[in-house]
């Protein structure tokens, strides 16, 4: 045990001093600040060009109201911040084009040429029967910027408002009255009533989406990045020791199992420190900006660290075995693909499980040991959480798998670390495990 601790201590010191660790500590906050900052910054500057578009109105009644409404949504105006398709940082300038005596295709061709020359950004056609409530007519939008969605989004919202207004007017019905009469009663999503310690009834709290979905998303993401930052570090460390023959020097001092166990323990320590830093930072940030720190319970934290430790031991063993079986870093990339798939697949399954965390699929998948750290943690962080026996069963299955993974990895490690110049095949690795 003494030697395992010495290796673990050295691995820990080496890892936390490495640039990779410092980068991984800073990575998440920097990414968050960058993503929020860039989104805000680019919102202001990415769409600062006025866009003139032509309106060909075959109804004869839509163009004028649309021009009037467009001015209301100009930057700086009362509705600028509410403009459909994003807040106004530029103007949409509709220009009516008369279609009275022209062949439609001739007119379309002419307007298309004007778009190509840059005189117009786009043009839009309102068919004559678009006002017919029973018709299937569609507003036609033409542009050579198919990826630009702000103007079509704006048109969908505003033009339909104008069209519906006109339909109500023609039917002599007061739209405002209809709107009041058809106003929907929304459903408020609440928790449950409870009694406090003194026996008084406590009212249910309204469900806060940030609390309900933010914490599960953060838990799964943190688990994923912690595993992803520790696993490859273990792989690199093993390959470095194998390629530079350090492993043989070390094996003159301790058994291969002691060496591997020390590495795993070092990696577990680094992962705990890394995730603890993230958890502490996240809680401080959540408390400062929204007072959300209380949603992270001790129960959640305890299970998070239990599953994290088992994950690092289980996946870390696999990374170590791959490193010991490969002759260089390049060879390890191919072997890593199935391991990466094991890590990625649960991430893809998070959304369906988020929708029905108590469903059969969620229950079964969260018991699968390689998926449990993500999916069981996701279920634990979603109220009311899975039954205790499911959590315990999931943890027990994962613990058993971890023991098997460590045992098999130790066998591969023992032989692989002394094998030079050749990457082991899967058959050879199986033979080493069975030996």
């Amino acid at each position: 045990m003494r030697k395992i601790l010495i290796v673990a201590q050295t691995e820990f010191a080496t890892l936390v001093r490495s640039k990779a660790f410092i980068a991984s500590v800073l990575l998440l906050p920097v990414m968050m600040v960058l993503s929020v900052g860039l989104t805000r910054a680019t919102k202001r500057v990415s769409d600062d060009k006025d866009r003139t578009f032509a309106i060909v109105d075959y109804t004869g009644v839509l163009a004028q109201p649309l021009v009037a409404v467009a001015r209301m949504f100009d930057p700086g105006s009362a509705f600028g911040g509410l403009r459909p398709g994003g807040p106004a940082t530029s103007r949409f300038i509709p220009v009516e084009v008369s279609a009275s005596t022209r062949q439609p295709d001739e007119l379309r061709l002419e307007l298309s040429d004007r778009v190509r020359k840059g005189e117009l950004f786009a043009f839009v056609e309102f068919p004559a029967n678009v006002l017919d409530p029973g018709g299937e007519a569609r507003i036609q939008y033409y542009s050579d910027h198919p990826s630009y969605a702000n103007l079509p989004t704006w048109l969908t919202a505003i033009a339909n408002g104008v069209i519906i207004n006109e339909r109500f007017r023609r039917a002599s019905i007061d739209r405002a009255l209809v709107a009041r009469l058809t106003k929907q009663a929304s459903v408020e999503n609440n928790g449950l009533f409870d009694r406090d310690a003194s026996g008084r009834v406590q009212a249910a709290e309204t469900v806060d989406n940030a609390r309900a979905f933010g914490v599960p998303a953060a838990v799964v993401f943190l688990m994923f990045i912690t595993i992803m930052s520790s696993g490859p570090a273990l792989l690199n460390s093993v390959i470095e020791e194998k390629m530079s023959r350090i492993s043989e020097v070390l094996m003159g001092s301790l058994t291969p199992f002691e060496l591997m166990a020390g590495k795993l323990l070092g990696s577990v320590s680094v992962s705990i420190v890394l995730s603890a830093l993230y958890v502490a930072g996240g809680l401080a940030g959540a408390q400062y900006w929204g007072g959300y720190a209380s949603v992270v319970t001790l129960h959640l934290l305890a299970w998070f660290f239990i599953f994290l430790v088992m994950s690092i031991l289980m996946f870390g063993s696999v990374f170590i075995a791959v490193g010991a079986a490969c002759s260089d870093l390049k060879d390890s990339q191919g072997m890593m693909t199935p391991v990466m798939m094991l890590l990625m697949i649960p991430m893809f399954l998070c959304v369906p499980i988020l929708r029905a965390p108590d469903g059969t699929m969620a229950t079964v998948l969260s018991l699968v040991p390689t998926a449990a750290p993500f999916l069981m943690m996701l279920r634990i962080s979603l109220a009311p959480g899975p039954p205790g026996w499911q959590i315990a069963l999931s943890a027990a299955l994962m613990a058993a798998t971890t023991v098997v993974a460590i045992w098999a990895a130790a066998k591969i490690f023992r032989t692989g670390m002394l094998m030079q110049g050749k990457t082991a095949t899967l058959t050879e690795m199986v033979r080493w495990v069975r030996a």
Partner: protein
Amino acid sequence: MSDAIVLRGVTKRFNGTPAVSELSLAVPTGSIYGFIGPNGSGKTTTLRMIMRILLPDQGEIEVLGLHDSATARDRVSYLPEERGLYKKMTIRRLLRYYGRLKGGSLAGLDKAIDEWMERVGLPGLQDRQIETLSKGMSQKVQFIAAVVSNPELLILDEPFSGLDPVNAQVVKDAVLEMRRRGTTVVFSTHDMATAERMCDRIFMIFNGGKVLDGSLESIQDQYGADTVRLRTSGGALALAGMAEVEAVNDFGQLQEVRVAGDPQMFLARLAARTVVYHFEITRPSLQDIFVRIAKPA
């Protein structure tokens, strides 16, 4: 005195092919014991089995009186043939790490590190990062890593390979210093001259089996005084066609000749052919014995 290492009937196979067969040997405590043998003869496999990095398929190994050599690990140091260092560590951190794995205390190790760094000509460099060291410096640090814990048994696989003459001498002096301190030293080498000069006993392995084991004198005695070292005006050409000549080792200015029959008769016949400046009847060198054994038939 007891033996530091005892091997009894040790066999190791890889994929069914024997790398070491029925090997038995005893390394006396306090001696310098040389392992020689051609590449692939089983030297490294034997050393790895002694270190318990590999386990024998048959036979038993006793290290420092213990049958389970794993328990003797802290008293034994091993320097493999191809060795590396952690590039990002400082010399002190690295040596402390290796020393602590052998059971050393930080205070004791720091003292030993400073002393060895001074001895091998690297004073004051303890806090330098490994990746900034020259090849020669790295090799000396690797050697210190093996001796810093002051082991009772030091096993070195090709410790002098790749060293320039100055650094080779530094390491040789350090090996002798370890012996003076009471450490048993086992090293493998391809340098026969070094083995002759440094080793109390020499062991040769060939095709996985023992072919020589004993002091240099006893080994040479087995091969008799059939070697003549000579220098003539005709050089090696003067020896052509002489019936007594069994083998010639030509050093240019000097030839070492294995002679069949009476050396005096050979001298008389040679003197009739060329001017003889030097004629010395001697025992075969270790190099010659090695070649006799390992030369392809």
